[in-house]
Protein backbone atom coordinates (compact mmCIF):
# COMPACT_ATOMS: atom_id res chain seq x y z
CA UNK A 1 0.00 0.00 0.00
CA UNK A 2 1.20 3.48 -0.74
CA UNK A 3 2.37 5.52 2.18
CA UNK A 4 -0.21 8.16 2.89
CA UNK A 5 2.36 10.73 3.88
CA UNK A 6 5.95 11.34 4.83
CA UNK A 7 7.64 8.09 5.69
CA UNK A 8 7.49 7.13 9.34
CA UNK A 9 5.50 10.16 10.48
CA UNK A 10 2.43 9.36 12.53
CA UNK A 11 0.93 12.79 11.97
CA UNK A 12 1.36 15.01 8.95
CA UNK A 13 2.90 18.37 9.82
CA UNK A 14 -0.34 20.14 8.96
CA UNK A 15 -2.17 18.00 11.50
CA UNK A 16 0.50 18.70 14.11
CA UNK A 17 0.50 22.44 13.47
CA UNK A 18 -3.28 22.78 13.47
CA UNK A 19 -3.47 20.63 16.62
CA UNK A 20 -1.30 23.02 18.62
CA UNK A 21 -2.81 26.18 17.18
CA UNK A 22 -6.18 24.71 18.11
CA UNK A 23 -4.99 23.88 21.63
CA UNK A 24 -3.96 27.51 22.19
CA UNK A 25 -6.93 29.11 20.42
CA UNK A 26 -9.49 26.86 22.07
CA UNK A 27 -8.02 27.43 25.54
CA UNK A 28 -8.14 31.19 25.06
CA UNK A 29 -11.65 31.00 23.61
CA UNK A 30 -12.90 29.01 26.58
CA UNK A 31 -11.19 31.20 29.17
CA UNK A 32 -12.30 34.48 27.59
CA UNK A 33 -15.75 33.01 26.99
CA UNK A 34 -16.06 32.21 30.68
CA UNK A 35 -15.12 35.80 31.51
CA UNK A 36 -17.89 37.00 29.18
CA UNK A 37 -20.29 34.52 30.76
CA UNK A 38 -19.40 35.85 34.22
CA UNK A 39 -20.79 39.28 33.28
CA UNK A 40 -24.22 37.62 33.43
CA UNK A 41 -23.72 34.03 34.61
CA UNK A 42 -27.27 32.96 33.86
CA UNK A 43 -29.42 32.20 30.84
CA UNK A 44 -32.83 33.58 31.77
CA UNK A 45 -34.11 36.72 30.14
CA UNK A 46 -34.75 39.56 32.55
CA UNK A 47 -37.98 38.85 34.37
CA UNK A 48 -38.04 35.18 33.38
CA UNK A 49 -36.74 31.95 34.81
CA UNK A 50 -34.75 29.41 32.86
CA UNK A 51 -35.66 25.77 32.97
CA UNK A 52 -32.47 24.00 32.24
CA UNK A 53 -29.51 25.30 34.14
CA UNK A 54 -29.35 24.52 37.86
CA UNK A 55 -26.57 27.01 38.57
CA UNK A 56 -28.19 30.25 37.41
CA UNK A 57 -26.19 33.13 38.84
CA UNK A 58 -23.08 31.10 39.64
CA UNK A 59 -20.00 32.57 38.02
CA UNK A 60 -17.01 30.57 36.84
CA UNK A 61 -13.96 30.82 39.13
CA UNK A 62 -11.73 33.76 38.23
CA UNK A 63 -8.69 31.56 37.63
CA UNK A 64 -10.46 29.93 34.70
CA UNK A 65 -11.06 33.26 33.00
CA UNK A 66 -8.93 35.31 30.66
CA UNK A 67 -8.96 38.71 29.05
CA UNK A 68 -9.08 41.09 32.01
CA UNK A 69 -12.48 42.78 32.12
CA UNK A 70 -15.55 42.10 30.03
CA UNK A 71 -14.33 44.34 27.21
CA UNK A 72 -10.89 42.73 27.08
CA UNK A 73 -12.36 39.24 27.16
CA UNK A 74 -14.74 40.15 24.34
CA UNK A 75 -11.91 41.57 22.28
CA UNK A 76 -9.90 38.38 22.77
CA UNK A 77 -12.91 36.21 22.05
CA UNK A 78 -13.76 38.05 18.83
CA UNK A 79 -10.16 38.02 17.63
CA UNK A 80 -9.37 34.43 18.55
CA UNK A 81 -12.56 33.16 16.92
CA UNK A 82 -11.01 33.77 13.50
CA UNK A 83 -7.88 31.83 14.38
CA UNK A 84 -10.00 28.98 15.72
CA UNK A 85 -12.32 28.93 12.71
CA UNK A 86 -9.62 29.30 10.04
CA UNK A 87 -7.39 26.76 11.76
CA UNK A 88 -10.30 24.35 12.02
CA UNK A 89 -11.12 24.85 8.37
CA UNK A 90 -7.51 24.14 7.36
CA UNK A 91 -7.52 20.95 9.44
CA UNK A 92 -10.84 19.74 8.05
CA UNK A 93 -9.84 20.57 4.47
CA UNK A 94 -6.56 18.70 4.92
CA UNK A 95 -8.16 15.69 6.55
CA UNK A 96 -10.69 15.56 3.74
CA UNK A 97 -8.34 16.10 0.80
CA UNK A 98 -5.54 13.95 2.17
CA UNK A 99 -7.70 11.00 3.14
CA UNK A 100 -6.98 11.08 6.87
CA UNK A 101 -10.71 11.22 7.52
CA UNK A 102 -10.70 7.49 6.95
CA UNK A 103 -8.90 7.07 10.28
CA UNK A 104 -11.73 8.91 11.99
CA UNK A 105 -14.91 8.10 10.10
CA UNK A 106 -17.23 5.76 11.98
CA UNK A 107 -17.41 2.22 10.71
CA UNK A 108 -19.56 -0.76 11.34
CA UNK A 109 -18.07 -2.54 14.32
CA UNK A 110 -16.94 0.61 16.11
CA UNK A 111 -19.49 0.17 18.86
CA UNK A 112 -18.33 -3.38 19.46
CA UNK A 113 -14.68 -2.30 19.32
CA UNK A 114 -15.36 0.52 21.76
CA UNK A 115 -17.06 -1.95 24.07
CA UNK A 116 -13.99 -4.20 23.85
CA UNK A 117 -11.84 -1.22 24.86
CA UNK A 118 -14.08 -0.55 27.84
CA UNK A 119 -13.82 -4.19 28.83
CA UNK A 120 -10.05 -4.01 28.53
CA UNK A 121 -9.84 -0.86 30.66
CA UNK A 122 -12.06 -2.51 33.27
CA UNK A 123 -9.86 -5.63 33.36
CA UNK A 124 -12.68 -7.75 32.00
CA UNK A 125 -10.54 -8.42 29.00
CA UNK A 126 -6.86 -9.17 29.41
CA UNK A 127 -5.32 -7.97 26.21
CA UNK A 128 -5.62 -4.71 24.37
CA UNK A 129 -7.94 -5.03 21.38
CA UNK A 130 -6.31 -4.76 18.04
CA UNK A 131 -6.64 -1.32 16.55
CA UNK A 132 -5.71 0.86 13.64
CA UNK A 133 -4.20 4.27 14.16
CA UNK A 134 -6.62 4.95 17.00
CA UNK A 135 -8.63 2.71 19.25
CA UNK A 136 -12.38 2.83 18.85
CA UNK A 137 -13.01 5.06 21.90
CA UNK A 138 -10.35 7.50 20.81
CA UNK A 139 -11.64 7.52 17.29
CA UNK A 140 -15.17 8.38 18.34
CA UNK A 141 -13.86 11.36 20.32
CA UNK A 142 -11.66 12.61 17.47
CA UNK A 143 -14.63 12.23 15.16
CA UNK A 144 -16.96 14.12 17.49
CA UNK A 145 -14.59 17.02 18.22
CA UNK A 146 -14.70 18.68 14.78
CA UNK A 147 -18.49 18.50 14.78
CA UNK A 148 -18.61 20.07 18.20
CA UNK A 149 -16.23 22.73 16.89
CA UNK A 150 -18.59 23.47 14.02
CA UNK A 151 -21.49 23.68 16.47
CA UNK A 152 -19.50 25.99 18.73
CA UNK A 153 -18.83 28.31 15.80
CA UNK A 154 -22.44 28.28 14.59
CA UNK A 155 -23.96 28.87 18.04
CA UNK A 156 -21.34 31.56 18.59
CA UNK A 157 -22.29 33.38 15.39
CA UNK A 158 -25.94 33.01 16.40
CA UNK A 159 -25.42 34.97 19.62
CA UNK A 160 -23.02 37.43 17.99
CA UNK A 161 -25.57 38.43 15.30
CA UNK A 162 -29.03 37.64 16.71
CA UNK A 163 -30.66 40.33 14.55
CA UNK A 164 -28.70 40.35 11.31
CA UNK A 165 -28.58 36.55 11.25
CA UNK A 166 -31.89 36.01 13.02
CA UNK A 167 -32.75 32.83 11.06
CA UNK A 168 -29.58 31.16 12.36
CA UNK A 169 -30.37 32.25 15.92
CA UNK A 170 -33.89 30.98 15.41
CA UNK A 171 -32.52 27.63 14.32
CA UNK A 172 -31.04 27.20 17.80
CA UNK A 173 -34.27 28.28 19.48
CA UNK A 174 -33.61 32.01 19.82
CA UNK A 175 -30.94 34.03 21.57
CA UNK A 176 -31.30 32.56 25.04
CA UNK A 177 -31.16 28.98 23.79
CA UNK A 178 -28.36 29.68 21.34
CA UNK A 179 -26.35 31.08 24.25
CA UNK A 180 -27.19 27.97 26.23
CA UNK A 181 -26.10 25.63 23.42
CA UNK A 182 -22.93 27.64 22.96
CA UNK A 183 -22.16 27.06 26.62
CA UNK A 184 -23.16 23.39 26.51
CA UNK A 185 -20.93 22.72 23.50
CA UNK A 186 -18.07 24.38 25.39
CA UNK A 187 -18.68 22.09 28.38
CA UNK A 188 -18.57 19.05 26.10
CA UNK A 189 -15.37 20.27 24.47
CA UNK A 190 -13.82 20.75 27.91
CA UNK A 191 -14.93 17.30 29.00
CA UNK A 192 -13.58 15.54 25.92
CA UNK A 193 -10.46 17.71 25.90
CA UNK A 194 -9.72 16.90 29.54
CA UNK A 195 -10.24 13.20 28.84
CA UNK A 196 -7.93 13.47 25.85
CA UNK A 197 -5.14 15.13 27.82
CA UNK A 198 -5.55 12.67 30.68
CA UNK A 199 -5.31 9.68 28.35
CA UNK A 200 -2.24 11.12 26.64
CA UNK A 201 -0.35 11.16 29.92
CA UNK A 202 -1.96 8.10 31.46
CA UNK A 203 -1.83 5.74 28.52
CA UNK A 204 0.30 6.98 25.66
CA UNK A 205 2.79 9.68 26.69
CA UNK A 206 4.80 9.24 23.53
CA UNK A 207 1.79 10.43 21.54
CA UNK A 208 2.69 13.87 22.89
CA UNK A 209 6.04 13.55 21.13
CA UNK A 210 4.37 12.24 18.00
CA UNK A 211 2.17 15.33 17.92
CA UNK A 212 5.33 17.47 18.00
CA UNK A 213 7.85 15.63 15.85
CA UNK A 214 5.55 13.18 14.15
CA UNK A 215 7.62 10.18 15.26
CA UNK A 216 6.00 7.26 17.00
CA UNK A 217 7.46 4.00 18.22
CA UNK A 218 4.87 1.32 17.54
CA UNK A 219 6.62 -1.16 19.80
CA UNK A 220 5.67 1.07 22.72
CA UNK A 221 2.11 1.76 21.65
CA UNK A 222 -0.62 1.15 24.23
CA UNK A 223 -1.66 -1.85 22.23
CA UNK A 224 1.84 -3.35 22.24
CA UNK A 225 2.21 -2.64 25.96
CA UNK A 226 -1.33 -3.56 26.97
CA UNK A 227 -1.49 -0.21 28.67
CA UNK A 228 -4.41 0.84 30.80
CA UNK A 229 -4.80 4.28 32.36
CA UNK A 230 -3.08 4.46 35.76
CA UNK A 231 -1.79 0.87 35.49
CA UNK A 232 1.53 -0.36 34.25
CA UNK A 233 1.40 -2.02 30.93
CA UNK A 234 2.81 -5.42 30.16
CA UNK A 235 4.18 -6.26 26.76
CA UNK A 236 2.19 -8.85 24.96
CA UNK A 237 3.80 -12.26 25.19
CA UNK A 238 4.76 -13.99 22.02
CA UNK A 239 3.93 -17.58 21.51
CA UNK A 240 6.33 -19.76 19.65
CA UNK A 241 4.29 -22.60 18.40
CA UNK A 242 6.09 -25.20 16.38
CA UNK A 243 4.37 -25.81 13.14
CA UNK A 244 5.60 -29.26 12.33
CA UNK A 245 5.62 -31.19 15.56
CA UNK A 246 3.92 -29.75 18.58
CA UNK A 247 5.72 -30.66 21.75
CA UNK A 248 3.86 -32.99 24.04
CA UNK A 249 3.42 -30.38 26.72
CA UNK A 250 1.46 -28.09 24.47
CA UNK A 251 2.45 -24.64 23.39
CA UNK A 252 5.70 -23.34 24.71
CA UNK A 253 6.59 -19.82 25.26
CA UNK A 254 9.85 -18.67 23.94
CA UNK A 255 11.07 -16.49 26.76
CA UNK A 256 13.87 -15.11 24.69
CA UNK A 257 11.55 -13.54 22.25
CA UNK A 258 8.99 -12.34 24.69
CA UNK A 259 9.43 -8.86 23.46
CA UNK A 260 7.03 -8.65 20.66
CA UNK A 261 8.69 -8.45 17.29
CA UNK A 262 7.97 -5.11 15.85
CA UNK A 263 6.27 -5.20 12.57
CA UNK A 264 5.67 -1.83 11.04
CA UNK A 265 2.04 -1.01 11.37
CA UNK A 266 -0.03 -0.86 8.31
CA UNK A 267 -0.20 2.56 6.72
CA UNK A 268 -2.21 4.87 8.83
CA UNK A 269 -5.04 5.34 6.47
CA UNK A 270 -5.78 1.65 6.55
CA UNK A 271 -9.04 0.72 8.17
CA UNK A 272 -8.78 -0.20 11.80
CA UNK A 273 -9.06 -3.87 11.29
CA UNK A 274 -6.64 -6.72 11.53
CA UNK A 275 -4.24 -6.65 8.66
CA UNK A 276 -4.96 -8.95 5.82
CA UNK A 277 -2.80 -12.02 5.84
CA UNK A 278 0.24 -11.84 3.69
CA UNK A 279 2.32 -14.78 2.60
CA UNK A 280 5.17 -13.74 4.88
CA UNK A 281 3.13 -13.83 8.08
CA UNK A 282 1.82 -17.24 7.29
CA UNK A 283 5.29 -18.53 6.81
CA UNK A 284 6.54 -17.33 10.17
CA UNK A 285 5.73 -19.90 12.78
CA UNK A 286 5.29 -17.34 15.51
CA UNK A 287 1.78 -16.48 16.41
CA UNK A 288 1.13 -13.37 18.29
CA UNK A 289 -1.44 -14.08 20.92
CA UNK A 290 -2.69 -10.58 20.49
CA UNK A 291 -3.55 -11.18 16.91
CA UNK A 292 -5.40 -14.33 17.75
CA UNK A 293 -7.35 -12.25 20.21
CA UNK A 294 -8.92 -10.30 17.57
CA UNK A 295 -9.70 -12.78 14.98
CA UNK A 296 -13.35 -12.45 14.42
CA UNK A 297 -15.27 -14.00 11.69
CA UNK A 298 -17.17 -11.18 10.19
CA UNK A 299 -17.67 -9.75 6.81
CA UNK A 300 -15.02 -7.14 7.27
CA UNK A 301 -12.34 -9.52 8.31
CA UNK A 302 -10.53 -11.82 6.04
CA UNK A 303 -7.87 -13.13 8.37
CA UNK A 304 -9.62 -16.05 9.91
CA UNK A 305 -6.86 -18.25 8.59
CA UNK A 306 -4.33 -16.58 10.86
CA UNK A 307 -5.79 -18.30 13.84
CA UNK A 308 -5.13 -21.66 12.41
CA UNK A 309 -1.48 -21.17 11.72
CA UNK A 310 -0.36 -22.70 14.94
CA UNK A 311 -3.53 -24.53 15.70
CA UNK A 312 -4.04 -22.31 18.71
CA UNK A 313 -7.43 -22.35 20.27
CA UNK A 314 -9.47 -19.29 20.50
CA UNK A 315 -11.01 -18.91 23.87
CA UNK A 316 -14.47 -17.50 23.54
CA UNK A 317 -15.39 -13.99 24.45
CA UNK A 318 -12.41 -13.06 26.52
CA UNK A 319 -10.39 -13.60 23.41
CA UNK A 320 -7.47 -15.27 25.10
CA UNK A 321 -5.57 -18.22 23.91
CA UNK A 322 -4.72 -21.16 26.06
CA UNK A 323 -1.20 -20.55 25.03
CA UNK A 324 -1.18 -17.21 26.70
CA UNK A 325 -2.30 -18.75 29.92
CA UNK A 326 0.54 -21.20 29.75
CA UNK A 327 2.91 -18.37 29.22
CA UNK A 328 2.27 -16.84 32.59
Amino acid at each position, binding site marked *: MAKPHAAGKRHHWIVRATHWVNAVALTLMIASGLRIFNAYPAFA*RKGETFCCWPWEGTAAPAWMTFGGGLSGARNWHFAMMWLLAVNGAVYLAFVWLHGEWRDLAPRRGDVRDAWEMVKFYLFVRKTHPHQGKHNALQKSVYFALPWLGVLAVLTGIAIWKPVQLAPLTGLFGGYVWARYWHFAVMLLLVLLGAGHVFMVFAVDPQSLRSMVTGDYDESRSPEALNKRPLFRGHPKPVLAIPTAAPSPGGAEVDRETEVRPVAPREPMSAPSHPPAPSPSTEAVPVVDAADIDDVRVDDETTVATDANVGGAEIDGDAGETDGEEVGR
Partner: protein
Amino acid sequence: MMDRRRFLSLGGLSAAALIAEACESHGPKGALKVLRWAERRNESVERFLFRHTSMNHASADRLVGRRMPSYYISKGPPVWDEAVRGKWALEVSGAVRTPLRLTLEDLAKLPRVTQRIDHFCVEGWTASTQFTGVRVSALARLAGIRPDAGYVDFQSFDSDYHESWDLESAMHPQTLVAFMREGRFLNSWYGAPARVHSPVKLGYKNTKYLTRVVFMPQRNGGYWSDKGYEWYGGT
Protein backbone atom coordinates in the same frame (compact mmCIF):
# COMPACT_ATOMS: atom_id res chain seq x y z
CA MET B 1 17.87 11.07 20.18
CA MET B 2 15.05 10.28 22.54
CA ASP B 3 16.55 12.35 25.30
CA ARG B 4 17.07 15.30 23.06
CA ARG B 5 13.47 15.13 21.98
CA ARG B 6 12.22 14.80 25.50
CA PHE B 7 14.37 17.77 26.41
CA LEU B 8 12.92 19.75 23.53
CA SER B 9 9.34 18.95 24.43
CA LEU B 10 9.95 19.79 28.09
CA GLY B 11 11.56 23.02 26.95
CA GLY B 12 8.51 23.80 24.87
CA LEU B 13 6.21 23.18 27.82
CA SER B 14 8.17 25.39 30.18
CA ALA B 15 8.35 28.13 27.55
CA ALA B 16 4.57 27.94 27.24
CA ALA B 17 4.29 28.19 31.03
CA LEU B 18 6.53 31.28 31.03
CA ILE B 19 4.45 32.94 28.34
CA ALA B 20 1.28 32.15 30.26
CA GLU B 21 2.80 33.70 33.37
CA ALA B 22 3.88 36.81 31.50
CA CYS B 23 0.36 37.20 30.12
CA GLU B 24 -1.43 37.63 33.41
CA SER B 25 -5.10 37.78 32.83
CA HIS B 26 -5.16 40.58 30.26
CA GLY B 27 -2.82 38.89 27.85
CA PRO B 28 0.47 40.34 26.63
CA LYS B 29 0.60 44.08 25.95
CA GLY B 30 1.73 43.50 22.39
CA ALA B 31 -1.53 41.72 21.68
CA LEU B 32 -3.48 44.97 22.05
CA LYS B 33 -2.58 46.07 18.54
CA VAL B 34 -3.67 42.75 17.13
CA LEU B 35 -6.95 42.94 19.05
CA ARG B 36 -7.61 46.46 17.72
CA TRP B 37 -6.86 45.28 14.22
CA ALA B 38 -9.19 42.30 14.66
CA GLU B 39 -11.92 44.64 15.94
CA ARG B 40 -11.67 46.72 12.76
CA ARG B 41 -11.82 43.57 10.64
CA ASN B 42 -14.85 42.40 12.59
CA GLU B 43 -16.47 45.76 12.00
CA SER B 44 -16.17 45.35 8.25
CA VAL B 45 -17.66 41.87 8.50
CA GLU B 46 -20.51 43.24 10.62
CA ARG B 47 -21.13 46.07 8.16
CA PHE B 48 -21.11 43.57 5.34
CA LEU B 49 -23.76 41.50 7.12
CA PHE B 50 -25.90 44.52 7.98
CA ARG B 51 -29.28 44.74 6.28
CA HIS B 52 -31.96 47.33 6.82
CA THR B 53 -34.46 44.56 6.22
CA SER B 54 -33.21 42.43 9.13
CA MET B 55 -35.79 43.00 11.82
CA ASN B 56 -36.12 41.95 15.39
CA HIS B 57 -39.45 41.04 16.92
CA ALA B 58 -39.73 39.98 20.52
CA SER B 59 -42.52 37.89 21.88
CA ALA B 60 -45.13 39.88 23.76
CA ASP B 61 -45.49 37.31 26.50
CA ARG B 62 -45.91 37.51 30.26
CA LEU B 63 -43.36 39.13 32.50
CA VAL B 64 -40.66 39.54 29.92
CA GLY B 65 -38.97 42.90 30.01
CA ARG B 66 -40.92 44.25 32.95
CA ARG B 67 -37.74 43.96 34.91
CA MET B 68 -35.53 45.76 32.49
CA PRO B 69 -32.76 47.12 34.70
CA SER B 70 -32.37 50.84 35.13
CA TYR B 71 -28.96 52.12 34.17
CA TYR B 72 -27.04 55.42 34.01
CA ILE B 73 -23.48 56.53 34.74
CA SER B 74 -24.25 59.55 36.94
CA LYS B 75 -24.51 59.13 40.72
CA GLY B 76 -28.28 59.22 40.70
CA PRO B 77 -30.85 59.06 37.92
CA PRO B 78 -30.16 62.11 35.75
CA VAL B 79 -33.02 64.61 35.75
CA TRP B 80 -33.37 67.51 33.31
CA ASP B 81 -33.71 70.56 35.54
CA GLU B 82 -35.87 73.05 33.61
CA ALA B 83 -35.21 75.78 36.18
CA VAL B 84 -31.52 75.68 35.36
CA ARG B 85 -31.38 74.52 31.77
CA GLY B 86 -34.66 75.72 30.36
CA LYS B 87 -37.08 73.55 28.49
CA TRP B 88 -35.69 70.28 27.20
CA ALA B 89 -35.36 70.04 23.45
CA LEU B 90 -33.67 67.58 21.20
CA GLU B 91 -31.07 69.12 18.97
CA VAL B 92 -30.53 67.57 15.54
CA SER B 93 -27.41 69.13 14.10
CA GLY B 94 -24.03 68.62 12.48
CA ALA B 95 -23.85 67.71 8.82
CA VAL B 96 -27.44 68.73 8.11
CA ARG B 97 -29.00 71.44 5.97
CA THR B 98 -31.59 72.54 8.57
CA PRO B 99 -30.63 71.98 12.20
CA LEU B 100 -33.65 71.18 14.38
CA ARG B 101 -34.71 71.80 17.94
CA LEU B 102 -37.58 69.53 18.90
CA THR B 103 -39.39 69.70 22.20
CA LEU B 104 -41.05 66.60 23.58
CA GLU B 105 -44.36 67.92 22.22
CA ASP B 106 -42.78 68.33 18.78
CA LEU B 107 -41.46 64.78 18.92
CA ALA B 108 -44.82 63.43 19.98
CA LYS B 109 -46.44 65.09 16.95
CA LEU B 110 -44.15 63.35 14.47
CA PRO B 111 -45.12 60.01 12.94
CA ARG B 112 -44.45 57.48 15.66
CA VAL B 113 -43.55 53.83 15.70
CA THR B 114 -44.36 51.36 18.47
CA GLN B 115 -42.34 48.18 18.52
CA ARG B 116 -41.71 45.32 20.91
CA ILE B 117 -38.13 44.29 20.46
CA ASP B 118 -35.27 42.61 22.29
CA HIS B 119 -32.76 44.65 24.18
CA PHE B 120 -29.38 42.94 23.90
CA CYS B 121 -27.01 43.83 26.71
CA VAL B 122 -23.28 43.45 26.23
CA GLU B 123 -23.28 41.42 29.44
CA GLY B 124 -25.30 38.69 27.81
CA TRP B 125 -28.80 39.22 29.12
CA THR B 126 -31.77 40.21 27.04
CA ALA B 127 -35.09 41.80 27.88
CA SER B 128 -37.95 42.29 25.51
CA THR B 129 -39.66 45.57 25.88
CA GLN B 130 -41.96 47.91 24.00
CA PHE B 131 -40.79 51.34 22.90
CA THR B 132 -42.61 54.14 21.11
CA GLY B 133 -40.75 56.88 19.33
CA VAL B 134 -39.68 58.57 16.12
CA ARG B 135 -37.36 56.89 13.65
CA VAL B 136 -33.91 58.44 13.50
CA SER B 137 -34.22 58.13 9.73
CA ALA B 138 -37.30 60.39 9.90
CA LEU B 139 -35.33 62.99 11.86
CA ALA B 140 -32.52 62.75 9.32
CA ARG B 141 -34.98 63.39 6.51
CA LEU B 142 -36.49 66.35 8.37
CA ALA B 143 -33.10 67.91 8.96
CA GLY B 144 -31.81 66.97 5.52
CA ILE B 145 -28.49 65.25 6.14
CA ARG B 146 -25.60 66.20 3.91
CA PRO B 147 -23.84 63.54 1.82
CA ASP B 148 -20.70 63.72 3.94
CA ALA B 149 -22.58 62.52 7.03
CA GLY B 150 -21.32 58.99 7.59
CA TYR B 151 -21.78 58.79 11.35
CA VAL B 152 -24.13 59.94 14.06
CA ASP B 153 -23.23 60.88 17.61
CA PHE B 154 -25.96 60.43 20.21
CA GLN B 155 -25.18 62.70 23.16
CA SER B 156 -26.79 62.90 26.58
CA PHE B 157 -27.00 64.89 29.80
CA ASP B 158 -26.05 61.77 31.80
CA SER B 159 -22.59 63.14 32.63
CA ASP B 160 -20.59 62.95 29.41
CA TYR B 161 -22.26 59.80 28.10
CA HIS B 162 -22.47 59.55 24.33
CA GLU B 163 -22.06 56.88 21.66
CA SER B 164 -21.47 57.39 17.97
CA TRP B 165 -22.93 55.10 15.34
CA ASP B 166 -22.40 54.32 11.70
CA LEU B 167 -25.09 56.00 9.60
CA GLU B 168 -26.49 52.73 8.19
CA SER B 169 -27.35 51.37 11.64
CA ALA B 170 -28.87 54.70 12.67
CA MET B 171 -31.06 54.67 9.54
CA HIS B 172 -32.40 51.19 10.33
CA PRO B 173 -36.21 51.37 10.55
CA GLN B 174 -36.11 49.98 14.10
CA THR B 175 -33.71 52.66 15.37
CA LEU B 176 -35.85 55.11 17.31
CA VAL B 177 -35.60 58.21 19.40
CA ALA B 178 -38.00 56.73 21.92
CA PHE B 179 -40.01 58.74 24.41
CA MET B 180 -42.42 56.04 25.61
CA ARG B 181 -41.93 52.58 27.05
CA GLU B 182 -44.75 50.10 27.54
CA GLY B 183 -47.24 52.83 26.66
CA ARG B 184 -46.03 55.44 29.16
CA PHE B 185 -43.70 58.38 28.86
CA LEU B 186 -40.20 57.52 30.03
CA ASN B 187 -39.33 58.28 33.62
CA SER B 188 -35.94 59.42 34.84
CA TRP B 189 -34.86 55.84 35.67
CA TYR B 190 -35.20 54.85 32.05
CA GLY B 191 -33.77 57.73 30.08
CA ALA B 192 -36.42 60.49 30.19
CA PRO B 193 -37.30 62.55 28.33
CA ALA B 194 -36.03 60.66 25.28
CA ARG B 195 -33.49 57.99 24.45
CA VAL B 196 -32.13 56.04 21.51
CA HIS B 197 -33.33 52.51 21.16
CA SER B 198 -32.65 49.90 18.55
CA PRO B 199 -32.29 46.15 18.52
CA VAL B 200 -29.48 46.40 15.94
CA LYS B 201 -26.94 47.60 18.51
CA LEU B 202 -25.91 46.37 21.94
CA GLY B 203 -27.45 48.17 24.90
CA TYR B 204 -24.55 50.50 25.58
CA LYS B 205 -24.81 52.03 22.12
CA ASN B 206 -28.36 53.17 22.90
CA THR B 207 -27.83 56.54 24.57
CA LYS B 208 -30.39 57.52 27.20
CA TYR B 209 -31.20 61.03 28.48
CA LEU B 210 -30.70 62.21 24.91
CA THR B 211 -29.89 65.84 24.17
CA ARG B 212 -28.26 65.90 20.75
CA VAL B 213 -28.23 63.86 17.56
CA VAL B 214 -25.16 65.07 15.66
CA PHE B 215 -24.49 63.87 12.13
CA MET B 216 -20.77 63.72 11.42
CA PRO B 217 -18.31 62.91 8.67
CA GLN B 218 -16.17 60.99 11.20
CA ARG B 219 -16.91 58.69 14.06
CA ASN B 220 -16.70 60.13 17.52
CA GLY B 221 -16.06 57.13 19.76
CA GLY B 222 -18.28 56.80 22.78
CA TYR B 223 -18.38 56.42 26.53
CA TRP B 224 -17.94 52.64 26.57
CA SER B 225 -16.29 52.44 23.15
CA ASP B 226 -13.44 54.55 24.51
CA LYS B 227 -13.12 52.17 27.44
CA GLY B 228 -12.31 49.20 25.22
CA TYR B 229 -15.75 47.94 24.21
CA GLU B 230 -16.32 47.45 20.50
CA TRP B 231 -17.22 50.69 18.82
CA TYR B 232 -19.54 48.98 16.35
CA GLY B 233 -21.36 46.79 18.87
CA GLY B 234 -23.87 45.46 16.35
CA THR B 235 -26.20 42.54 16.85
